């Protein structure tokens, strides 16, 4: 995989902070001096001088360890949310003396991953590898690396912050859904494809030969019976279209986008466990995971999928086409792990699209109306709304209504804030540390609001599901839990 873009070099100035050991040493030196002066013991004065010298050198030395170090990060381009992220570093020392005991803290994806580099030889380089804790969905364009060292004695800690460019797309996790009646056409608003003549594999009828027909399709038995050249006619395979609309609104104070555009903003990744974290971000992550899961299912069922969300200026969309070969009923087209080793499939670009989805100010009904424009007959629509406590029920109802008005079989999935699929998957990877992928704060108000919204959406005739925290998405969509169904 192509390397990360460019190393970053430590600036001249570093932050130096004496530790408590230094204070203890100072107190010890003072005690030695007092006792030595009082008893006139020259050796205690020698000890005082030695301890003070140790203090001075020990405080100064860490700053020299962190200077003149260049760091280059090599990280995979994409990973599924909830999976640990392998990363390697190359540190190069531009000074003649080596650097020792450098702790490298990578904050590219919010939660920090630490690794210890025992030694970087002078005018040479050292390699180090680490595994960053699982990250949330998003596009991470570089991030800070903090180099720190207290070598050799730990009397002070020197910290240097480097902005190391890099690029990582954390794709939303998704579930391999077994099936969904809504998508397969067994429920109300049947989205089954209309039978139309055309090129395909399914037999439709027998007709007279027209010039241009392939002689391979001649139906000899009928020809022999009627005496006229007759050919087989097949059904035109027109895959059904699925319109997946993802909406998440930004409520409360704005927070730094994960897909930040400048080096200075890259570090402003919201820590979900911080008091200022917005639960709507968690709901949006879950909404994208649901969209990914449903896109995967749709593609396997042979639907062409158009993903729509609100961008900074207008709606942005992505069209995913199932591969030739028809629907696949076996397994997922895109396993949840091993993303870097699989063949390119249609789901990957869709996941990339969903990775970059950000909160927007556009109301959900307007988004749905824009999305529904120009949709052809025979499509179905899935409106996935990341619910907050301020999401308006009339907006959701109007959104569902817009989609229904264009003749689309409409399903509405209301997503409450809660544990994402990525978070639930990250727990086995974290080992002793169960907080490697911090969870978003709960929002009880949003859950209550979701049921109100569900009622309003059902009144429009749409199929409605409510995905609450702690519920399995497949079960919810299958209607196995309360709050779902038509």
């Amino acid at each position, binding site marked *: 995989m192509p390397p990360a873009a460019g190393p970053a070099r430590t600036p001249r100035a570093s932050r130096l902070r004496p530790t408590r050991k230094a204070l203890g040493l100072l107190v010890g030196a003072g005690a030695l001096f007092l006792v030595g002066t009082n008893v006139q013991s020259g050796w205690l004065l020698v000890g005082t001088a030695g301890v003070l010298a140790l203090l001075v050198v020990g405080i100064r030395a860490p700053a020299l360890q962190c200077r003149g170090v260049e760091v280059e990060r090599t990280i995979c381009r994409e990973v599924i949310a909830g999976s640990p992220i392998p990363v390697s570093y190359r540190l190069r020392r531009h000074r003649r003396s080596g650097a020792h005991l450098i702790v490298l803290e990578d904050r590219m994806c919010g939660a920090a991953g630490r690794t210890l580099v025992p030694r970087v030889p002078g005018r040479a380089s050292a390699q180090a590898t680490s595994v960053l804790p699982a990250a949330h969905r998003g596009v991470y*364009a570089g991030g800070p690396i903090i180099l720190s060292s207290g070598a050799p004695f730990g009397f002070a800690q020197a910290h240097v912050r480097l902005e190391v460019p890099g690029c990582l797309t954390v794709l939303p996790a998704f579930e391999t859904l077994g099936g969904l009646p809504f998508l397969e056409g067994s429920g109300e608003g049947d989205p089954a494809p209309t039978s139309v003549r055309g090129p395909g594999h399914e037999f439709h009828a027998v007709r007279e030969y027209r010039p241009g027909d392939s002689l391979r399709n001649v139906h000899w038995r009928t020809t022999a019976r009627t005496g006229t050249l007759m050919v087989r006619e097949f059904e035109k395979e027109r895959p059904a279209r699925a319109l997946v609309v993802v909406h998440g609104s930004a409520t409360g104070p704005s927070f730094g986008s994960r897909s930040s555009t400048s080096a200075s903003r890259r570090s402003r990744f919201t820590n979900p466990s911080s008091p200022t974290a917005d639960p709507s971000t968690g709901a949006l992550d879950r909404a994208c995971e649901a969209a990914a899961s449903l896109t995967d299912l749709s593609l396997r069922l042979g639907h062409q999928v158009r993903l729509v969300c609100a961008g900074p200026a207008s709606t942005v969309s992505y069209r995913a086409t199932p591969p030739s070969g028809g629907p696949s009923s076996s397994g997922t087209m895109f396993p949840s792990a091993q993303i870097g080793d699989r063949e390119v499939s249609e789901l990957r670009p869709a996941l990339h699209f969903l990775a970059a989805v950000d909160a927007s100010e556009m109301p959900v009904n307007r988004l749905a109306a824009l999305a529904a424009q120009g949709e052809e007959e025979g499509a179905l629509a899935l409106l996935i709304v990341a619910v907050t406590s301020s999401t308006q029920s009339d907006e959701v109802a109007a959104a569902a209504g817009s989609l229904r008005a264009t003749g689309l079989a409409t399903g509405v999935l209301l997503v409450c804030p809660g544990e994402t699929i990525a978070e639930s998957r990250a727990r086995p990877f974290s080992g002793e540390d169960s907080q490697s992928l911090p969870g978003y704060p709960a929002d009880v108000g949003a859950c209550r609001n979701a049921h109100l919204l569900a009622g309003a959406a059902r009144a429009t005739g749409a199929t409605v599901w409510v995905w609450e925290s702690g519920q399995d998405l497949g079960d919810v969509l299958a209607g196995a839990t309360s709050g779902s169904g038509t």
Partner: protein
Amino acid sequence: MNRLLAAIRRANAPGPSEDDPLLRLAVLVTTLVAFAAVATQQAVAWGSVALAAAVTTSASIFSYRMRRRSLMSLKAVLALVLTVLFLQFLAAVRFAVSVDQTSQPLTRLFVYVVALHSCDLPRRRDLAFSLAATAALMAVAGVFSVEGGFGIWVLVYAVLLLASLALLHASEARENAGVDAGKAQTGRSGRTRVGRTTGAFATRLSAAVPPLRAAGGTVLPLVLAALAVFAFLPRFSGMNIRRMPMALGGALPAPGPEGTLFNPRLGDPGPSGMRPFNPGAYFGFDDKLDLRVRGRLSEELVMRVRAPEPHFWRALAFDTYDGTSWTASDRRTHRVGGAPPIGLPAEEPGQSVWPSHEVVQTFFLESAQPNVVFAAYQASELYFPTSSVRIDRYGSLLSPVLLEAGTVYSVVSRTPTATPDELRSASGEYPEGLIERYTALPPGLPERVRSLALATTATAPTNYDKILALESWIGANTRYDLTIGALPSGADAVDNFLFGDRHGYCEQIASALAIMARTAGIPTRMAVGFTPGTRDAFGGMFEVRANDAHSWVEVFFPEIGWYEFDPTHEVPEAVGAGRGIFRPLETLRSVAATLASALPAPARLGLLGLAGLIAAGTGARSLGRGLRARAARPKPRNDPAARVARCFEDLTRHFADNGIPREPWDTPREWHGRLRRLWLGPLPEAVDRLMGMYEAVRFAGYRPAEAEAAQAEKLLAMARAPGGGKGASAARPRGRNA
């Protein structure tokens, strides 16, 4: 209260155990070295130290193996043992009469505490406490130390301490980074399997190399910094908390009636009344100071003195000159005694209110000495290992026992302090009888001595100026010489010195000053003792040798007292010498002298030469390297084409920082195309223009003018400006397959 309990619980909460055996080994060895150091300085008996070392070693192994277990029963046993040891300590110091007598039992108790502490060292913090305890032990050993050889222990300990600190920090850094270097597997029961130790130990050994290398790199800066700090450390007088050591080397009473001076190393006087010369014994420590004695004293170490400042260590004084020797007209002594400290009366009435300052000295005798108590004049308190001493009218102190090697005693003296102006302005009544006693001259003293004195002091307005004038004359007109011939029979020693070849040593020189001053009516007397000696730079003690024996003159000033004058040039003046708080130059000189004296002469020369060669070689090598690097450095081109190219490079760096790097395989145009594709919003026009300029310069051979190069720099600034620089992430898909 709850907060306090919570804090106590937090402090005692079991934390992660320290698994690095190398760190534990380093701490163990450091502890053993500290034990050995206190034993060699006789702060603790060797038997106690051996026991403590054995306990510490086995306890360290035990606590390593049991580090993951909570050993509450062990803690209880340790508490019990410590209580027993403390009771033993109390029993040992029950009859102590001074703080000094508690020092050895206390040190022994501390050694046992450190040994027992080694039984329970699960965490890194516990090992750090052990290291701190070893530092305290070394400090105790330093207090007890009187010899320069303690420096070897200091060096060894310093190396081990640095290594331990480095390994301690390395372990801390690994824990912070969540790295386990060669940690043994932990089974389900919580016990540690230490199988496959070879592989794990080898891993640990290799993991220890970087921190030890880092520590090794700081040795030279440490040594230089320590030297600088040591030189500039203030030297206060100290001794505010009196912990006065006293010890007797032997307890043989001095022969003869009480109050008799006895010098065991002086032979019996011959027919001429002169004692034979003994290079190890100063002839002045006798009933009389015979100016006829000739000889060179040895360099035998006589004693060590711990004092805040140099002084003459006075023994005796003489007031009567008979032409060939000095004697004391009144050798009566009276007994002074009591519990330490023994209070000593002032020599003259009212002396207690005359200006003076306190000097505390401790004497450690290294060889047998006469039963005279050496001290700076004038002793006011005495910490002596006998219950009493005898004092004469001149303030000299006589011990009832012979002073053998190993005798230790302490003296608090109140030395007169007066500025030259105060000495000049000294006036007032002399105590009764003082003038007669201390201005008496022998009847046979030649008149030319008086004439010389009067002529030299004719223009001196005060007694102090007269003394200075006489000293100047002596310094300018006489020479110090230990090889002078015998005094002619019947000759006056002072007259022979002043009007003979004017060569002599301290006895002749001081006698000349004393007698000439007497002829001018100034009360003087002769004092004998030792010069301060050479100061050990590290131990801080004055080392006094046999050839430091000396005689000088004491001059009486009313309302000030007896003031010391040393007319012998080349001998450092006691008054005002080394009294400053900051003495960096003197300290550095004494460090150099101490280090040089520790080496034999050829080695000294060789080392000096080697050091010089290394310094010259290093300097030349650095200079050569610097010159070569300078010559090899590519000179920055400042022509316009180079400037345009630099602007383009800076532009690529700017966009790399914003998430759109130029890949190594990108041509400028390909990169520009990617910029346009990935940049949200329109690309700043400055970028396009700068691109165009660069392409023309780089690929079309265009030679830009100065103005165009300046314009390129402006375009770069515009491209970097905040308004023209914000864009999207490099890899943000725009609704299509990325």
